[in-house]
């Protein structure tokens, strides 16, 4: 087999329309270039695609199975279909599977997709009781307990609050691997978390499920920034939500530069009632790619201490 000739661009067809994308682009890039809105959950521009959620699947002529648009490289002459009955069915089922097992209430756009694909998560029966704290962390690979009669299994469980900066609500985790990639080789190289367990019992975990303060976590919060469902959330945001006080209509975002070091990361401060509630950084920044460190992400409390100036 010889290496393909280097090509400046790749010509393919998406739903019959001719599209040209740069060499190295994915089918997803081609679909977007063709104006198709493909749902994605585990995909993020700044991370290696793990193509695990399968909500972006499309039909590729000549392929026995559907292919993940987010990771499959566009190749010359490909015929891609984004809205066939097969595609719609798999997307509907993936979204239904997730909605029937995970709390998606804080996942942006998911409600819209559930509606668009006609999902009925309730048809799998009533949700089984939530797991006790730590219960899912103890599950081992191998035989599982028989399903609770008539109830559908879920990953519902109590939220993990073990530090003052962010919470981990794994009842909202769709196992997209993004936080693991951000903590690990793609961004932070801290490797405080990984996927543990197997199958439906798989979960994001520290070693032996120790609390974050006992783990390698450096509180950069880059995992929060990539989480697509709100499973990882600023404690400041979570507290407001729990109190019923989270109100996006009263929020605005202010861009500024992190004051701590010479890198000068861009900060986006989300502010409600004149208090910072969440800090992000733009993904498309060529230096930081949306990443921050603990100082930029969480070291803003002094801003709110203005009244203590006279102390």
């Amino acid at each position, binding site marked *: *087999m010889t*290496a393909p000739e280097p090509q400046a661009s790749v010509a393919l067809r998406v739903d019959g329309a001719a599209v040209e994308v740069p060499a190295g682009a994915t089918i997803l890039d081609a679909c977007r270039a063709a104006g198709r809105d493909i749902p994605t959950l585990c995909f993020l521009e700044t991370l290696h695609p*793990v*193509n*695990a*959620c*399968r*909500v972006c*699947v499309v039909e590729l002529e000549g392929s026995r*199975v*559907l292919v993940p648009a987010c*990771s*499959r490289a566009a190749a010359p002459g490909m015929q891609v279909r984004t809205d066939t009955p*097969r595609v719609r*069915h*798999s997307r509907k*089922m*993936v979204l239904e*599977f*997730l909605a*029937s*097992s995970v709390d998606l209430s804080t996942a942006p756009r998911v409600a819209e997709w559930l509606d668009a694909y006609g999902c009925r998560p309730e*048809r*799998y*029966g009533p949700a089984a009781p939530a797991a006790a704290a730590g219960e899912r962390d*103890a*599950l*081992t*690979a*191998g*035989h*599982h*307990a*028989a*399903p609770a*009669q*008539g109830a*559908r299994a879920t990953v519902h469980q109590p939220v993990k609050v073990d530090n003052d900066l962010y919470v981990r609500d794994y009842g909202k985790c*769709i*196992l997209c691997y993004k936080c693991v990639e951000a903590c*690990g080789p793609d961004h932070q190289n801290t*490797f*405080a*978390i*990984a*996927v*543990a*367990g*197997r*199958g*439906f*019992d*798989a979960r994001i*975990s*520290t*070693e*032996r499920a*120790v609390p974050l303060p006992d*783990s*390698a976590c450096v509180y950069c919060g880059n995992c929060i920034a990539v989480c697509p469902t709100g499973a990882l959330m600023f404690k400041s945001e979570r507290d407001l939500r729990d109190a019923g006080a989270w109100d996006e209509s009263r929020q605005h975002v202010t861009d500024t530069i992190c004051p701590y070091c010479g890198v000068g990361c861009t900060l986006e401060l989300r502010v409600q009632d004149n208090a910072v509630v969440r800090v992000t950084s733009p993904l498309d920044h060529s230096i930081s790619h949306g990443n921050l460190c603990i100082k930029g992400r969480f070291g803003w409390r002094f801003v709110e201490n203005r009244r203590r100036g006279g102390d």
Partner: protein
Amino acid sequence: MDLRLSDAQPTAEERSAVDAVLGAPASAWDGGERVAARDGHVAFGGGAARARRHLLLPALNALQAAAGWISEGGLMYVCARLTVPPADAWGVATFYGLLAADPRPRRMLHVCDDIACRTRGALAVVEALEREAGPAEGHGGGSGGGHGEGASGRRSGARGGWMRSPCLGLCDQAPAALLTEAGERPQERLIGGLTPTDAVAAVTGTVTPDRPRPKLPQQGDPALRLLARVGVVDPASLAAYEGAGGYRALAAAVRMGPEAVIREIAASRLVGRGGAAFPAGRKWEAVAGQRARPHYVICNADESEPGSFKDRVLLEGDPFALVEAMTIAGLVVGAETGFVYLRGEYPLAAERLGNAIAQARAAGRLGPDAAGPDRAFDIEIRRGAGAYVCGEETAVFNSIEGLRGEPRNKPPFPVEAGLFRRPTLINNVETLANVPRIVLEGGEAFARTGTGDSTGTKLFCVSGAVAQPGVYEVPFGTTLAALLALAGAPARGLRAVLLGGAAGMFVRGDETDFPLTFEGARAAGVTLGAGVVMAFDERTDLTDVLLRIAAFFRDESCGQCVPCRVGTVRQEEALHRLAAGRPLGSAATELALLEEIGTAMKDASICGLGQTAAFAVESAIKHLGLFAGGAR
């Protein structure tokens, strides 16, 4: 890498078990004693240590064998030795069923309650153990035992523990169990013909039931090719192998050269025997032609399909043949390193193959001149640790590399980017076992056996309701009915046959008159898979079999992709509702739901596990009419 390790220390036993795999640590930087003069002002490790990541699973297996579980101190020591973050290593350790994350008794009986065994008395064994040896360890089982009750719920005085296991590849001797005993000299044994009394004695005492492997049903039949030496030639002796025609094929291959061997394999029209039936000649040629180096050869011996045990029989009975075949493969595709990825549940196969490799090495048949002058080749065994999905070829790569055994997306295909992202030839044991004969007699002669599209002979693992279960070698084209007759299937009352294992399909007992070929199976709307043929008579509770298959896939899904991770759960739940006669809506609604779930798993799953997880369920509903009258 800046590792954050806890202060937990390994026991002396754990430390020496890990050092036996990794060698002694060189400095405090990789887990050794701190010597200030040596370690104080320089750092060792980094890339060199991380390059040994592929030894993670062997090291975890060593911990498990020494202590019976992966203790915190043991895990930290392995992490320090290999520069692997503890969370990462924890993710790997919790992926495998044979690695215990919590303390377990040192002596453990893993009792198979999978399809073949449960039709032959496994459930009676489980009941006896529950009654007399206390509840199962760990995660509970189909009977609904919860986790956490293991250690505390065990009867006082009980020496060991037990747990349920998926298929152990001993279906010809069902019911079966794997006995493991951790310690300085760890013991492991696959036991067939297990009685409830045996099982209780093995758990509560120190008895190790031992039954010799049964004779091959066709032993001595001159028509045998792949099985010709099994049970006849001493599997522990290189001299005996050579005396029985061994290593003639390698000599011929060296004379012919790689291109000629590829031509013969292509002419033989040999296709892969692991289930996917991919033309072997095309694979070999593709790997040989890749410019990237090095190339690798892997023998996929992770036989874990419920009902399959042919690879075990070959490995236990004719291990030198695999060594020779892999050496030919190394010569042909330009690889100097071969791996056998062997499922963790096959201790005798590991022992016999390990012995064969050692003898071949001592005789110079592996090593610097193994495949001819200056053509080096050597083989390493890598043992799995209880994960069906690791038989998927790209999961094999990840498992060997020390990662979680999650399948990769294809493309890239293994021939381009396989083990360590290098061109890799990966073939099943039985596929490789055909190679020496093709080299010796030529591809065309080989292709004269069998049919046009299915050449040669095929090993079938016949189990269940037959008089003589076992591995049978027949030419492709033999009908299923003839094969069943060979194994002594009941002339009447044969209700159903499961072809291809859990990932396969059911046919009715009166539908067996079709030829066992890839094309014949296709025409009959079934799959041969790796050659599992499981017979069920009128006494079999097929609903129970189906529930077990659904539970198996739910257990064995790696969890990576949503269609399989959740689809296998929803499939199992729907089947339980149907079986209990309490459907949501009507039975028809549930059957339609099952079809929707199955379609999504087939279309959108990453790998073959998810893509086939609904096959048996769908065929049972369509071919056998299960749940046709509502629940049953």
